[in-house]
């Protein structure tokens, strides 16, 4: 196991190098730094000297190869530098934003998993009846609705009808849960369709197996079959598909966080996009890749742990 992990981590290094190369080409090669400078200067009409000053201050004035070297080393040392538009330390903001994003991500992950499994089991238990047909139909429908519409309509309905939880904002500590509720509900509702359909497929595959028929013949109640036996065996494909989703959740759904005022990584990225802050977007792309690779490694490990037939060599 350990050897496998080390090999996977080592294999990730050239991937990260490739990613840094791509980001460099994109951000340094295509857009002239003068344009970036102009955007970020507060003056109503920046003079050429002011532009030059800004370029020097942010390191955009050096020749290309030097910038490339600087870019690669800094990324790998996780020294993300300063934001183009506000000049603040990017790494500090990432550390500050990781907490809220992780909270929302894990809440959505846990709730979504539970809800989707519940609905999939519900559909599997009532398979063949109108309940199953309706659930499948609702899943396809929910998959076809744009995420934005979920957020807009969700905030409109939830914010004005229910008054249990605050509309927006954030506080660290235990009361963070209050602020995570609304975005979590919207996030779960939006992802409900695809997950439920997928798990239902896995469950139904298992339900047709021989061991289920045996159990039924032995007199085991239907509910217990589903929960005890089918679920455990369907766990393997379920795990594979869910663990892979964690890194994207971590990125904190740009849309959710900006709508509900959660100061996480997602809203940080969203603000950077809006203010064309290349330094921050570079850093987030690298971070996102790092998390994704970690997610894939974690998936393989979980897979191996769950399924004893698989041996990692």
């Amino acid at each position: 196991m350990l050897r496998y992990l080390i090999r996977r981590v080592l294999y990730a290094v050239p991937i990260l190098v490739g990613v840094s190369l791509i980001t460099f080409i994109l951000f340094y090669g295509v857009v002239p730094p003068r344009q970036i400078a102009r955007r970020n200067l507060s003056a109503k009409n920046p003079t050429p000297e002011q532009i030059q000053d800004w370029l020097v201050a942010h390191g955009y004035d050096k020749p290309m190869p030097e910038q490339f070297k600087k870019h690669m080393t800094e990324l790998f040392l996780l020294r993300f530098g300063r934001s183009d538009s506000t000049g603040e330390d990017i790494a500090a903001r990432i550390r500050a934003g990781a907490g809220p994003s992780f909270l929302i991500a894990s809440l959505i992950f846990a709730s979504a998993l539970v809800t989707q499994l519940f609905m999939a089991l519900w559909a599997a238990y009532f398979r063949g009846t109108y309940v199953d047909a309706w659930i499948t139909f609702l899943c396809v429908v929910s998959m076809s609705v744009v995420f934005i519409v979920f957020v807009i309509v969700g905030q409109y309905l939830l914010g004005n009808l229910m008054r249990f939880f605050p509309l927006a904002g954030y506080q660290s500590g235990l009361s963070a849960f209050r602020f995570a509720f609304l975005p979590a509900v919207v996030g779960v509702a939006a992802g409900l369709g695809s997950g439920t359909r997928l798990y239902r497929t896995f469950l139904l595959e298992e339900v047709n197996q021989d061991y289920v028929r045996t159990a039924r013949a032995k007199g085991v109640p239907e509910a217990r079959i589903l929960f005890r036996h089918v679920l455990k065996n369907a766990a393997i494909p379920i795990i594979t598909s869910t663990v892979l989703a964690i890194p994207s959740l971590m990125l904190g759904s740009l849309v959710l966080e900006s709508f509900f005022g959660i100061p996480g990584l997602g809203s940080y990225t969203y603000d950077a996009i809006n203010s064309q802050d290349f330094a921050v977007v570079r850093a987030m792309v690298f971070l996102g890749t790092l998390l994704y690779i970690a997610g894939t490694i974690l998936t393989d490990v979980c897979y191996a742990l769950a399924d004893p037939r698989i041996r990692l060599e």
Partner: protein
Amino acid sequence: MIRSVPARGVLAVLAIWTLAGCNNSPYPPGITKESIFFMSQIDDPRKLDPASSYRDDEGKILDVICPSYYEYHPLKTKVFQLKPMLGERDARREAYNYTDAGGKAIAGERWTFHIRHDLRFQDDPCFPSGKGRTITARDFLYAFRRMADPVNGSPVVSFFEDKIIGFDELIARNRERQKRGEPADYDAPVAGLQLDPADPYAFSIALNQSYPQLRYLMAMHFTSPMPYEAAAYYGGDIQRHPVGCGPYVLESWTPKRRIVLAKNPNRPPESYPDDGDPGDAEAGYLAPAGRQLPLVDKIIISTITENTTGWNLFLQGYQDAWILKQTNFQQAFSQQGMLSEEMRQHGIRLVKTNDIGVTYFAFNMQDPVVGGYTPARRKLRQAISLAVNSQEFIDLFSQGNGIVAQGILPPGIYGYDPAYNNPWRAYDPSLARARELLKEAGYPSGIDSKTGDRLTLYYDNALTTAGGRQFVGLISRQLEALGIDFESRSQRDVVWQNKIDGNNWQFTDYGWLADYPDAENFFFLLYGPNRRPGPNLTGYDNPVYNRLFEKMRAMDDTPERLAIIHQLRAMIEEDCPLIFVQHTETMTLYQGWVGPVKPNPIGNTLHKFRSVDAALRAERQREWNAPVVWPLAVLAALFVACNVPAVLVVRNRHRRHVTQRGSSTPVSPSCSVT
């Protein structure tokens, strides 16, 4: 006992949620009972550095942290009045003759300032003991030197550069140093920045010309005293740690979340003024007269980017003030243009302010098609100007609030004439005169008489948002009625700015808010030498205008100045380089528990006059936010109702198999039911 994992999971999640508290206040419990003012902003200020912050939102926060020598009297808004704030008395202004390096005799002027002796900086870790020290004249001059340091990127240094003696040399020297990677020069003496060796609380600024507007600049935070210790201690982070001597200090700034201003124990004593404009006493603005400022202990400004969210928080009572936007208008207003019944019952008040500014469309005077000073081109511009209906803009985007702009000066500036009617801004729906002028300009019915092509006007703008698109749609419709082809090119701010600077545009939109209440601040927008990279966007360069402007800019507000202003106005009218749209108004809603604050469009220190009745606020918030439970109950009932038939069906399925086999012992169904 619930054994299944999913069910346990659901219960756990529910438990956490209920434990965390069941009220919808976004603030920690009990905080709304304290002497705090809550407001919101759409976005964080970019930075809070007195030397370089120019934007409106930055100024509103900075001016109560870093006050200046002068301040605008908060209640005198009919005619704006400066009164000494950090200064002990009014500055002395005298003629100053000297010879420059080339041996030429210059007739300049010198201003001498005396500051109060009881000023202290706020307590801040940048000071050795953590305690703020006394402020001397040297700190005021340090602010000027910070403006001359290119690292700070001060946008107003051009106001001073060519006027303070020796300042331009200092700036040039600093640039050289920066190219070499050295820090700027803060020690070398500058002829125009003079300290009094006998009095540490006095300093003088010597200019090479008459510049009455220096008074106004001494009321802007660029000239606010700054401790050199802060620059040394914070380095690049100084932009997020302003250190001043104002009524508030920046207690904390959590990026993209909130800014907290707290009362400064080191502030110079200051009390609420007891005089104002006629009518202030009746409006309640003189009620807090004599009280110590600031009136609340803290100001908490939350950053809320989504309009819906902010508006709903205001309605729930969690925000004390809200700037009204087009989208919230109909809920706030009833049909008659008065505050709606719902708002009034909640005790909400509306306050209207005239923004001292003007919005306009601009022609590029160097463009081969629309620019130039020949009669034909003038007529073309005048024709286009006649097709723009300002009132429609006001109706659609400001719900009818705002004044149609006839000229460049807004109300509140000396020289503004409410009776003035610009003939080229008189909109006539039939567009008869406009079409006539268009024909005379060589484009009958919009078609170029020489080439047979339709005249195409290219509109470069940075209006990429949904609201911006509506604006573009309106101007497109208005101008296409003339018969010309109107093509809008919306692009990102950066790209748009590049185009303007590269002289690569024909028609665009712009606006200007007064830096200070003087006509010079508006007429300089069309002063020839101020062309790009200065604020003269259009590149308008009329030698007669330039001469008259130079004559009037240093004058006091006298009838002679008024005469020149009328002449300038006539020239702008004739040449028509700008199509004036409106003088905007801002509408702010205040909750019933907020004390009255007189709006002041030039003075940015409103925060120190805010007051709240905290007990009333806590009570109202509780009243307005009682939780609503019935939707949950309905949903649960619906869920149960939907699934009951299914349960019955499945149970029947099982039972059917049992009875079919005819056995009395319960057996499970035989075949799988797929």
